């Protein structure tokens, strides 16, 4: 009694058109534009070693003589440096591409960390209930009363003071990821717990329990896949926030060091030269940051509207 494999599979386009999410995507110009911009930034950032004209991390390619050059179209610009150079003579375009890579890396990694923690704690508290739920949810409430960026700064500060000085720069990026991720989890935990309370009452969960599945397996196999919809929406919007958080931390000098600059670090460095007329050092990274965050946010909004038709 083998499965009949001769049933004709519909083509890719037909299947996409049949899928409600794909249909909504291809009929939303904003979503498509946002996805295109996000993809462009992600690809060019991660492909930076291939497409960037210079390697800003290679001291051999940097010359202080070339520092503070304006963009190529301005008076005194050098065609080799399309968007000009910063105070140390690094090519702005290359630095932004490499910096975007760090911003995105921190964004993705910290959202993933926050999501993992939040979903795990939220699903367990929703399913198990009792004192564990009370404890976790009160903790989340307390953390939500403090602005996320303050929590991140606090965690960041503690972690840095614990690290030996020689490791600080090297570990800075992981510290930032940890700080933002830890400041992020309460929102995920709340959403996941709410969805878990709804799902746990459904009969397929009871069926799984009647079969004999242990709570860990019920949660992992049955509840988590069914609470991921709202969580993913939150994660997309959270990605934009995490990128901003990283930029804020770096702008405040608490983030990644200037030797491996992220977009936030670049904006901070440029800020010092803004009133000397060297506007490009801060302007181009800021534009890159705004475009990236806007595109990700628009994608998140579209995803939310599509997955939660009640909000429309």
């Amino acid at each position: 009694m083998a499965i009949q494999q001769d049933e004709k599979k519909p083509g890719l386009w037909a299947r996409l058109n049949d899928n409600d999410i794909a249909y909504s995507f291809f009929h939303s110009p904003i979503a498509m534009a946002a996805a295109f911009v996000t993809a462009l930034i992600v690809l060019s950032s991660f492909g930076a070693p291939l497409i960037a004209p210079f390697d800003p991390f290679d001291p051999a390619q940097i010359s202080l003589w070339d520092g503070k050059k304006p963009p190529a179209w301005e008076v005194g610009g050098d065609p080799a440096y399309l968007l000009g150079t910063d105070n140390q003579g690094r090519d702005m375009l290359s630095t932004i591409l490499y910096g975007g890579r760090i911003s995105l890396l921190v964004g993705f990694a910290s959202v993933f960390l926050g999501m993992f923690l939040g979903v795990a704690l939220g699903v367990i508290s929703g399913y198990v209930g009792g004192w564990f739920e009370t404890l976790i949810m009160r903790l989340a409430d307390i953390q939500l009363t403090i602005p996320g960026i303050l929590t991140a700064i606090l965690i960041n500060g503690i972690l840095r003071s614990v690290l030996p000085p020689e490791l600080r720069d090297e570990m800075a990026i992981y510290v930032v990821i940890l700080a933002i991720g830890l400041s992020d989890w309460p929102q995920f935990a709340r959403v996941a717990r709410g969805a878990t309370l709804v799902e746990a009452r459904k009969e397929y969960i009871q069926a799984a329990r009647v079969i004999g599945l242990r709570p860990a397996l019920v949660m992992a196999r049955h509840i988590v896949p069914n609470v991921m919809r709202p969580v993913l929406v939150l994660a997309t919007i959270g990605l934009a926030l995490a990128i901003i958080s990283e930029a804020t931390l770096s702008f405040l000098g608490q983030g990644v060091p200037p030797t491996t600059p992220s977009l936030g670090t670049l904006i901070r460095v440029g800020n010092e030269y803004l009133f000397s007329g060297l506007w490009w050092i801060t302007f181009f990274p800021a534009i890159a940051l705004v475009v990236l965050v806007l595109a990700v946010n628009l994608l998140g909004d579209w995803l939310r509207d599509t997955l939660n038709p009640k909000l429309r």
Partner: protein
Amino acid sequence: MSLLEFKNMTVEFPTRRGVFTAVQDVSLSVDPGEILGVVGESGAGKSTIGNAVIGLLEPPGRLAGGEIYLKGSRIDNLDEDALRAIRGKRIGMIFQDPLTSLDPLQTVEQQLMETIQLHLKQSDEEARASAVSLLDRVGIPDPAIRIKQYPHQFSGGMRQRVVIALALCADPEVIIADEPTTALDVSIQAQILELMRELCRERSVGMILITHDMGVIADVTDRVAVMYRSRLVEEGPTEKILGDPDHDYTKSLISAVPRPDVRLARFPVVEYIESAGDRRDSIDVATHWLGAGQTESGGETMLRVEDLHVRFLTKFSFLKKNRIYLDAVDRVSFDIRQGEVFGLVGESGSGKSTIARAIAGLYKPAGGHIHFAGADLTEVRTESEMDRYRRQMQMIFQDPFSSLNPRMKVLDIVAEPIRFHGLASGGAETRQIVMDLLEHVGLGAEAARKYPHEFSGGQRQRISIARALATRPRFLICDEPTSALDVSIQAQILNLLKDLQAELGLTMLFISHDLPVIRQMCDRVGVMRHGKLLEVAETETLFESPQHEYSRHLLDLMPRLEVLSHELIAGLEMAD
């Protein structure tokens, strides 16, 4: 001239996958004082008719053709303002769920007076007086006091009475009632139907009563229209349609309704409606996988429940003595013999589902014992020991739309118990067993590759049954397995359960609020009310000579496909 008439009504819902015609070319009319029943299964378009008449089609629905006349004047081409003046004033509405039909933030008085004053020019005094007399008329005790209360302070039946009062407030000429009693228990349903009929006669209001329940149709309607796949297949006087239907669909629909008066070996199979199913090979237990490992015998009694007590915490306090509990199951004892189908019947809140869940281990009893296959389940301490009993005991749930994980393929859903209990020696054998099980529940092996949302309610219930069988159980708990299904599908599923029970020698605990279904399925029955087991008897004995007063009451209220004598019901005090 008829009161309300529509000619050649067609309702369409344009979607991106093409235009869906929900109602096609339907012509009907209602006279003053008449109740017209519109009956059909889910998706037949019966509710759409009601919504179309009052201009409340859900977007993107539209009236694509036909004319609607109210007392001879055309209303389907009126604009929204003119329609609003008709809605509520000349055409009243009663919907299925009394909870969502009332505003929870306003007292009943505010809602009634607002509606009265909106449509009739009355002073506050007059409006209040008419509101009180309306509540009195719909049978709410102490109307002058209760009118000050909020909807949540009324029980389900009382709330539906308030909704009826609300529909009557503006003295409408026509009332459209969409499944008005579906959310109510049988005893309350009978009272509400009786009330609706009286009111129609007394005020010569025409009523369109939309329902899926043949019993309701038989009870109160004068004429019936039968809908099938968005078309009107038959229309005529109720006695004629129920007693001597012309159309094949009507015939099969009536034959599928479980009979309360006599027990049949099998339900008549309704080929007209869904051809799937019932083409299955019977299982030979001696050679089949499902029969393997069934050597152990638990003796004469499969399950013995002793003084079972389940309670729920309704108000928490840190002090133990201040905690308030609700006794959902109050010291119930019964036993189920090997190979028997034991029924539990009762109204909602009687505790029958709670018993099932306590037996299945979903609730922890506060007291009492559950002996299953020779062991006391309340004494079992380790999970691995419990697994032995879990394997032998499975459960089929009520709601086919929530009992399957929407993110898992049918193959994985049915294979889960096999994998968990290690009942197959590898992936290939597991697949083989799953396909075989799907064949046996009448679905076909290709179902394994699909997701639950690709199936109808009845098909999903078959998947649930396959999953329950996958542990090779000896004892099956069926908790209202067909109450969410259409009557034709119900007949198929019940037949399937009967066949499987006979072939596999299963013992069953069958829970239902539906007495005719109980009569067709069960060998012995227990009657429950308020957490207590009132009577246990052989099914035939119970139906022929019920001993307990409440059992007699339930049997009296059972809707029959012959017109009931209503003196009995009217004489009962409104215990609600």
